[in-house]
């Protein structure tokens, strides 16, 4: 039986020619990732094993990005556990505040994750790296501990759903809109335990930043991973970043799919997800007149250069609505620097937005922009669960950076074409 790209990567890492969906296999890992929330329990579990070293000190990546710069004393203690561990075990890829970025923007940018890799991360949005043609999936802290110890992990070989996008993307429709539309279609558990393979002419036309955004939200449909074909854009992105060889895998022509779903993107408009699930989607024109208190632009979903450019394009020379706060947090230090050099930061500050250092911050209700009871935010992040950005009775709507920026100007959810 033919294998999909996800199955091929798993088979190669299990030292097998063939694997079948549903099989439990043991695989060699290329990269093991953890952050300041998930790594501390993993480190304490790892230490129980009493091993003198991690499986490979170049392939364990520790990023204190969630509650940093330390938001309180407990958060500081957790960040210190990472720092101390990185020093004690000589972990090369530990990123201190100042070098640090949001993990899922940072690892691809630094060339730490590459096509054909098998990556586990103790963070559910580890699936982001599928944009590079890698098999990347989120796990818990115990899996991370076992991965650091052995360089191996257990996997159930997933079935694959193929998502085909054809037609030309209309202006203002981005990767975020494609993935929100898809989640709205299949639901938050529509791809549970499965690989999501994204393909079609609209995907080929999509930038790498747009692909990262889509892969990032595979978990929001319950997916085990999201994956893209490696093409010229991927190679161009990886060139100059990769410091080790990589392999390109492609789905066989006879690969078996659990489902194939097709979308004509030429008829889409920007999408907004209403509280409290990412599947509650509506076209932006049906979301008009929802008033908002805060706009958040950034995160591992939409904190990349193209996202900031889209927001700046609308905010340039305009002002943030006086009854709302806008918080912008670039994904990494490099993105921050690029935005600074291109004049985007100035545009944001002039408009009346706040620009934060890279951090997860408000995305998970950590710090840097928490909502009060009854407040409503429009965010370019990936989750709008109850209490995600603050008080359990606050609300989060999800959208693309263009919709978020247009809404920031009007003070209510607004389609970008309304800004004239």
């Amino acid at each position: 039986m033919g294998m999909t790209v996800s199955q091929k990567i798993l088979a190669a890492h299990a030292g097998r020619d063939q694997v079948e969906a549903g099989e439990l296999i043991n695989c060699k890992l290329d990269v093991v990732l953890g952050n300041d929330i998930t790594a501390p329990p993993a480190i304490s579990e790892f230490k129980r094993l009493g091993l003198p070293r991690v499986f490979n000190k170049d392939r364990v990546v520790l990023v204190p990005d969630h509650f940093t710069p330390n938001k309180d004393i407990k958060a500081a203690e957790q960040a210190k556990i990472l720092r101390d561990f990185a020093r004690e075990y000589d972990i090369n890829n530990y990123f201190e505040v100042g070098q640090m970025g949001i993990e899922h923007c940072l690892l691809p940018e630094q060339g730490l994750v590459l096509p054909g890799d098998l990556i586990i991360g103790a963070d559910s949005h580890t699936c982001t790296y599928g944009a590079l043609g890698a098999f990347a999936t989120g796990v818990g802290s115990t899996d991370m501990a076992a991965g650091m110890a052995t360089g191996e992990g257990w996997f159930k070989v997933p079935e694959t759903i193929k998502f085909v996008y054809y037609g030309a993307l209309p202006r203002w429709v981005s990767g975020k809109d494609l993935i929100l539309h898809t989640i709205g279609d299949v639901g938050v558990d529509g791809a549970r335990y499965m690989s999501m393979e994204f393909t079609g002419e609209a995907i080929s036309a999509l930038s790498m930043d747009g692909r990262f955004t889509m892969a990032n939200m595979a978990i929001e449909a319950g997916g085990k991973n999201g994956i893209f074909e490696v093409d010229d854009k991927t190679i161009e992105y990886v060139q100059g970043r990769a410091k080790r060889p990589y392999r390109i895998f492609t789905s066989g022509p006879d690969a078996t799919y659990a489902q194939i779903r097709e979308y004509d993107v030429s008829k889409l408009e920007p999408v907004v997800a209403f509280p409290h699930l990412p599947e509650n989607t509506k076209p932006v024109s049906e979301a008009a007149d929802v008033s908002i208190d805060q706009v958040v632009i950034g995160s591992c979903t939409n904190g990349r250069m193209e996202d900031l450019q889209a927001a700046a394009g609308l905010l340039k020379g305009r002002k943030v609505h006086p009854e709302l706060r806008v918080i912008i947090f670039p994904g990494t230090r490099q993105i921050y620097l690029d935005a600074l050099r291109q004049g985007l930061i100035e545009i944001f500050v002039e408009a009346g937005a706040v620009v934060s250092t890279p951090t997860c911050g408000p995305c998970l209700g950590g710090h840097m922009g928490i909502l009060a009871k009854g407040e409503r935010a429009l965010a370019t992040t990936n989750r709008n669960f109850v209490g995600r950005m603050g008080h359990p009775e606050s609300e989060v709507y999800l959208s693309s950076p263009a919709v978020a920026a247009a809404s920031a100007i009007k003070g209510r959810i607004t389609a970008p074409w309304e800004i004239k």
Partner: protein
Amino acid sequence: MKLKGKVHKFGKDIDTDAIIPARYLNTFDPQELARHCMEDADPEFPNKVQAGDIIVADKNFGCGSSREHAPIAIQGAQVACVIAKSFARIFYRNAINTGLPILECAAAVDAIETGDEVEVDLSNGTITNLRTGQMYQAAPFPDFMQGIMAQGGLMNYLKEKLSYQGN
């Protein structure tokens, strides 16, 4: 192994932010996490829950983040097991890896109500509603996972394996 406990029933798509909100993730102490367990789904849960109680939920329990703090909070609250129509994949993994018993059984979830007393036999996956006397059969776990759970989680399993290999 047999468990007996009182049921707290929840709806579908209970996410990990509802099981343990991110604002409490600056610690991984089970007792501290337990004080906020399920708080955003039912603010009274941390006060109501008794040792040995059972959580019953509809589909896709534990969706969202990878935080192992979710099964840890549930274990900290001394919940004996979770029965759901289905589990989100990372939660499923984490529950097995940390030794929290979980069972998938749609028929049982439909029939069981909050306050029912339920008996669960983990060795064969049977669930009995002591109010009605009805018995249900959960899907069995693959041998490999049963092995991990029998050791009380992945790290114990690994420790055993590593010592066997002479590491």
